[in-house]
């Protein structure tokens, strides 16, 4: 029943004005900043999605994922025993087994997320998409980030989109599925809203803003619209909570905190946990560690003092 699709209205200037206001929010200081940064760390999906990924750099990434912040810094904040690790490690399907083996050897329970379904463009036939998902699950990925076909959105073929996502969900089996909407390529905020709702109806566990490879990735207007869609879905169903993941373009600790504050405002404090919120980032962790180093010691670290991811 897709009659509601025609009744979705999003006013772009109003959303953009709201987003401008958000950029002016004052950032936190002191212990509050440290706590929020650690929360951001636990929600990061540490990502490496380059053409030149090899077992060696994936291994390094996994070790960093297990110890994202230096032990002594955590101890100074009295958080060393809380098991601070990142939320997940995100790699291409071909590198999933490397990641899984490394994490198992290190005795770490962080899930490995794999991108699938023709990442990043999504312009591959449906059978190969489903095959890719099944293989990734076989290799040991516990989370799958699928990419939708933007063509279906731009053509307004909502039933087609629903069917595609539903099939991907079935192929994931027990793995947890994030649907990447690639909002930079969807054309309008109304399309973003509609695509979010379809993705949630078709069974996604998370909706994600972008692949990180588009021209425009996670911006506040898009995030606001998607979060409103999540809230509306929760109201409609009464119980279903879907997670939100902004990805791409988040590089500084300040931006990470602003995203967290935005989630808290739009969705509520219950969403501020790794089960319902993730940040797709790679260099962000470095900046967060710097800020925590500064908070603890009062000066910024030199390059060799913090472990490279």
């Amino acid at each position, binding site marked *: 029943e897709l009659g509601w699709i025609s009744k979705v209205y999003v006013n772009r200037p109003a959303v953009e004005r709201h987003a401008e206001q958000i950029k002016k929010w004052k950032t936190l200081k002191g212990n509050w900043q440290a706590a929020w940064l650690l929360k951001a760390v636990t929600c990061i999906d540490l990502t490496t999605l380059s053409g030149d990924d090899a077992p060696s750099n994936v291994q390094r990434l996994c070790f960093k994922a297990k110890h994202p912040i230096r032990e002594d810094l955590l101890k100074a*904040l*009295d958080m060393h025993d809380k098991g601070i690790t990142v939320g997940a490690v995100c790699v291409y399907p071909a590198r999933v087994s490397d990641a899984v083996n490394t994490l198992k050897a290190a005795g770490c329970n962080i899930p490995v997320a794999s991108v699938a379904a023709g990442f990043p463009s999504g312009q591959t036939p449906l059978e190969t998409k489903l095959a890719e998902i099944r293989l990734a699950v076989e290799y040991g990925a516990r989370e799958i980030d699928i990419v939708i076909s933007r063509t279906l959105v731009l053509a307004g073929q909502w039933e087609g989109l629903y069917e595609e996502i539903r099939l991907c969900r079935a192929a994931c089996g027990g793995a947890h599925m994030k649907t990447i909407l690639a909002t930079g390529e969807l054309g309008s905020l109304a399309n973003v809203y509609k695509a979010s709702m379809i993705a949630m109806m078709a069974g996604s566990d998370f909706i994600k803003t972008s692949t990180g490879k588009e021209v425009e990735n996670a911006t506040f207007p898009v995030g606001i619209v998607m979060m409103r869609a999540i809230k509306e879905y929760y109201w409609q169903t009464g119980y279903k909570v879907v997670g939100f993941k902004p990805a791409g373009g988040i590089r500084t600790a300040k931006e990470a905190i602003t995203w967290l504050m935005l989630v808290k405002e739009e969705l509520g404090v219950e969403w501020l946990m790794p089960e319902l919120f993730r940040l797709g980032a790679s260099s962000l962790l470095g900046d967060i560690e710097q800020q925590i180093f500064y908070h603890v010691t*009062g000066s910024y670290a030199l390059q060799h003092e913090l472990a490279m991811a």
Partner: protein
Amino acid sequence: MAALAALGAPPVPEIFATMEEGPIPGEINPGEAWLESHGRSLGHFVDGTWLKAAGRTSLECQEATTGRTVATVPAGDSSDVAVAVAAAKAAAEAWAGLGGPQRGQRLTRLAATLAGDRRGTMGALLALAGGRPLCRTLGADLDLGLRLLQVPAAGAQLGPPGLEGWTPLGVVAVVLGGPCSLPALLWKLGPLLAMGNTALVLSPPAAAPPLLLLGELSGEGAALPPGVLNVLAGPPGLCRALHTHPEVTSVTFLGAPQEELEALVWGSPCRGPRLGGPRGGRVVVIVLDSADLDSAAAAIAATAAAPLALFPWGGCVVLAQDAVVAALERRLWARLGGLRLGDPTDPKTEVGPLPPGTRPPEGVVQEAREEGAQVFQAPLPPLPEGGCRFYPPTLISGVAPTSRCLREPAPGPLLVLLSVRGPTEAVALASALPQTAAAAVWAQDITVALDTADRLPQGLVWLNALDLLDPSGGCAGGAADTDLDEALREFGCPPWEQPSKVDELLSPLVTVDDPGDPELAQAVAAARGAAPGWGRLPRASRARVLRGASAAPAGGRGAPEDGDNGDTAGGLQRALLRWAARVERAGGAVQALVAAGLPGGVLTVLPGNSRGSGSRLARHHPDGLWLCGGDADCDWASAASVPRVWGVPAGLLGAPGQDPPPGAERELELRCTRPHCLWLPGGAP
């Protein structure tokens, strides 16, 4: 690290669990710092320096949240007023003689000083005094205030069109009834100063600190010469002392709701129909079924939290179409519940305390509950001592237009939600609500939205937005819709007029219950009935009717205007006025007009003496009032809140047979019309 622990911050694991946000630590409130630097005891600011006469009683300036005294000001009295008026008069000639462009430059310099590093002080003081949260006083308010200084400055620099030959009035007194926000004050001060007048601001102690800071800043950076802006603090009755000073040519009242203003006005001297002030009112928001409900809810909640700078009273009435009212309500509950209440000088606070001097609207809410409405109130967080000044954001739904919360505006974060069946009903309800200053229409269907916006009577209408205000476009001050042009004209004296001097105190006319005036009442009623139809006729038809009328008057001496097709309304008005001036007052004239096609009721001529008729007419609440051969009735009428009062000066039409003075036509045109401003946001900010 030790320093942070000493701050009393909770340990990191605790914050990690609760994800609370914490205060912004550390910086000393710049407003308090400034007050400290003056030893918490301020004086008047007159003639470029502080004036602290000895032996005066002190009045306390209290903070809005807790009532704590933050500073003291001397209680001004008539000798202080005399000194201030003398200083202002002395500076007036020089200031006027500087010329428009120079004045514009000075005002821009003042705006630059305000925008510089003193903005924090100004914002903090405004938050302290008035209770508006800092995020507003330092944000939108300050930006709007600066625009209000810069735009008249630019206008004065370039020479506003149609104002050549206008001379300044001289010394203008601005009387504040209570703390008012920066834009509301600068809305008057900006054009006032740009036109070449000098200002004397009388303020109650609660509102004094930010104004005194403004005075101090005006001297910095060679902005305004000494004596141009003078600020006196004093008890409310101080404005009566003005009547012994005939140099004060105009008085403006600001910053208090209608009833309090009227209390101030009676018993004060005033000059001509220049008794004006923004009459605040509520904002009506119409949400149609094609609206972006989330954005609408966000904007409405923000308006409830801290009302718009120019409409500080009365909260918001939301008219939502049936299909979306439930969804909108749910979103409003979520938003209102998330608003942060607290100390207004804290940058995180979104809702401050009630403005000082206003009562909490508990009675209104209680009545609504008794009528069976659903009242949602956001829970109050733990508040600093003195928390009784806070009122939680409230949403009342399920009331009818007869309910008290709709009939009168109530201060505080109060929203009333009504459900309507469609845009037509929404327009009807919006027109029927008393005291509405502005309206907003939320709809994505552009045809419906523009049509609704067009039919709303409010002078200021936003489409899919709230609180977009810019002086160059036009802002409404409640019933007296004005835009910048008119604001400038309010403080200038056209070349065909002398600044009027009246020196008797204005007292409310004892309304003897005279049963007479049924004719007058009928005439006004008939005119009101004919107004929509006549107003909607296209210009050409109106022109045709009037041309026919002027060609065939009883006693036919009016020369018809040889009209080109582009007849300006001014030209026809001129013809009609000339004609009316020559024709004897008789019912026959009206018949001739009716025969010419003028709809009945549009023009009524009544016999009688013109003296005193102004006040009689004013009692019937017309939308505008022109008095030819102006007299004291004008003052009374504008004080009684008839909008758009004008004493038509005799010289306006020129001697018979001669052309009227330049600019007169435009003046007539402007006086006949009322700006209706529609804001359409679009594109990236």
